């Protein structure tokens, strides 16, 4: 049932067989067919699993996809918009601090190849959004690859006003520009903040400068310090 991938590895095996799942998958397949007709070559990848439909489009058609989803297909509910940085973290899996690395030998940190998830992907940054139709319970997860040189996509604000804050967040956390957004400014971080924290190459400084408590915070309890001669720890 996950055989409708047009690009990318099919990583997900079919979900435990429930009758609703297959019906939802069939419905998602029908929607995918309509998406192919409506979007044409702009649709570059898709995936269906557990009744959920992923659509991946060219970044230029990002806003067209939103307009088609809302106006033609009736997906009136905007759930969220964000992005994924597919580059593996250059700091290794745990972003261990220097202290931790001296405790146990660090594995050689060569960058593993960049792999993208369901419905495929060509570039490092990928937009991610989800919309639903609350009357029928259908939903679509939309994705779009962004050119690495120029992180830029059309804004969804004109279609879904709720995308305003989500795009500000994506701009702040990933550095993605949204054309047509009424005012891209910081939403969580202070105005003078530099860098894009959710990018994989942005170090989690708290973990870099401070040892991970679970590993080195081995402190002797006071009563076991020197034989417990003060009698406090003695059993009655």
């Amino acid at each position, binding site marked *: 049932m996950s055989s409708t991938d047009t690009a990318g590895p099919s*990583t*997900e*095996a079919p*979900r*435990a067989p429930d009758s609703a799942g297959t019906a939802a998958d069939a419905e998602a397949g029908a929607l995918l067919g309509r998406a192919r007709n409506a979007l044409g070559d702009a649709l570059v990848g898709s995936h269906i699993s*557990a009744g*959920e439909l*992923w659509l991946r489009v060219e970044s230029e058609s990002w806003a067209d996809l939103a307009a088609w989803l*809302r106006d033609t297909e009736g997906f*009136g*509910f*905007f*759930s*969220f918009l*964000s992005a*994924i*940085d597919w580059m593996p*973290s250059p700091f290794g*899996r*745990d*972003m261990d601090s220097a202290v931790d690395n001296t405790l146990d030998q660090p594995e050689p940190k060569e960058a593993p190849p960049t*792999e993208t*998830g*369901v419905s495929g992907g060509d570039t490092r940054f990928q937009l*991610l959004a*989800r919309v639903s139709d*609350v*009357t029928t*319970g259908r939903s679509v*997860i939309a994705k779009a690859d962004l050119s690495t040189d120029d992180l830029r996509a059309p804004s969804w604000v004109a279609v*879904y*006003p*709720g995308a*305003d*804050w*989500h795009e500000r967040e994506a701009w702040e*956390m990933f550095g993605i520009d949204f054309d047509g957004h009424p005012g891209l400014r*910081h*939403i*969580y*971080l*202070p105005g003078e903040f530099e860098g894009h*924290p*959710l990018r994989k190459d*942005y170090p*989690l400084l708290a*973990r870099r400068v401070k040892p991970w408590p679970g590993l080195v915070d081995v402190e002797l309890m006071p009563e076991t310090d020197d034989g417990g001669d003060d009698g406090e720890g003695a059993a009655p």
Partner: protein
Amino acid sequence: MTVTERQQLSYIAAQAADARVNLEIETEGMTLNIGPQHPATHGTLRIVAKLDGEQVVAAEPVMGYMHRGYEKLAEVRTYPQVTTLINRIDWLGSFANEVPFILAAERLMEVEAPPRAQWIRTILFELSRIANITLFLGDMAVQVGAITPVFFAFRDREHVLNQIEAATGGRFHPNFDRIGGLKDDLPAGWVAETRGAMRKIRAFCDEIEELVEGNEIFQARTRGIGVIPPGVGLSYGLTGANIRASGVDWDVRRDSPCGLVHDQVDWKVWTHPDGDSFARFWVRLQETREATKIVDQLLDGIPSGPIMAKVPVIIKVPAGEAYVETENPLGVMGYYVVSKGDLNPFRVKIRSASFSNVSITPWLLRGVYVPDIITILGSLYFILGDIDR
């Protein structure tokens, strides 16, 4: 013409009359900072409101005072460690925060919790809802100047928190949900005690109904105020009671159930056609009462059996992507989990309800009067941790 339309029109007429007065006496524009420490904001949210006389011309929420970066932190935690963080997103209904994340991880691992765990999960999920919304019911009265109901709310919420504590060990941050089941089974006598707590909550709902809902001042301050049309609400991503109060009959618990057993019991989704502050209050009041009925029915039929499925000691989640959302106390909460087959998630996108619910405020507060800002914010009901994550 419905009641709502009449109310809306009279409100618009009043606004227009006021704008005329403002024009005649040439009031000067003024910027008013509400918060960051206002009781209506449940944390530290600042609203910068540009005023013309008593009317708001533009309002802009300023947030980030409590941004903790959970999406980044989750990338360096193992899956079982992530629940400790996400407990603190909506701190009044914290168990409910854990559920969608655990369900997303379970979907990727193709693990299913045993029936007993699913039932207890659903019970605790609904108890979180009651603990969360109880406070709202008292708090909403504070926004219009009635102090007493909030003390009733704190008093009666305690019964629910005691039950959550008895089962999980934590009043506010249970950290009890596990991939594949639950940490522990229920303690002896818990079922009977919870029934007693549900009776007390129903009595509390009646009390609030008599004390607040019919009150003339409360009605005058909330009816026809802050009206959200359903289409606008949906396009801003409003969920939960906020959208059901606009007449949208949509509840994830009923419409796309996932991993919880709400479909095993008999209950009702409450909606209200008006879409104003009063409707949001009314829907939440009904939902609290409905949740006690759900809990009561679930308590009757908890199946026996194990509470943990067979999962490895060290949890590695297979590569894949999953999005699971549930109907949390504040609205729909979902986690988009990207796994690369590692010990920790590669990326976790947290779709929290309050962030979207509050994103409508610049639209909603335009043109309202200053005192109405407070009742509108109160009725939207957000938790700052749920906005800032």
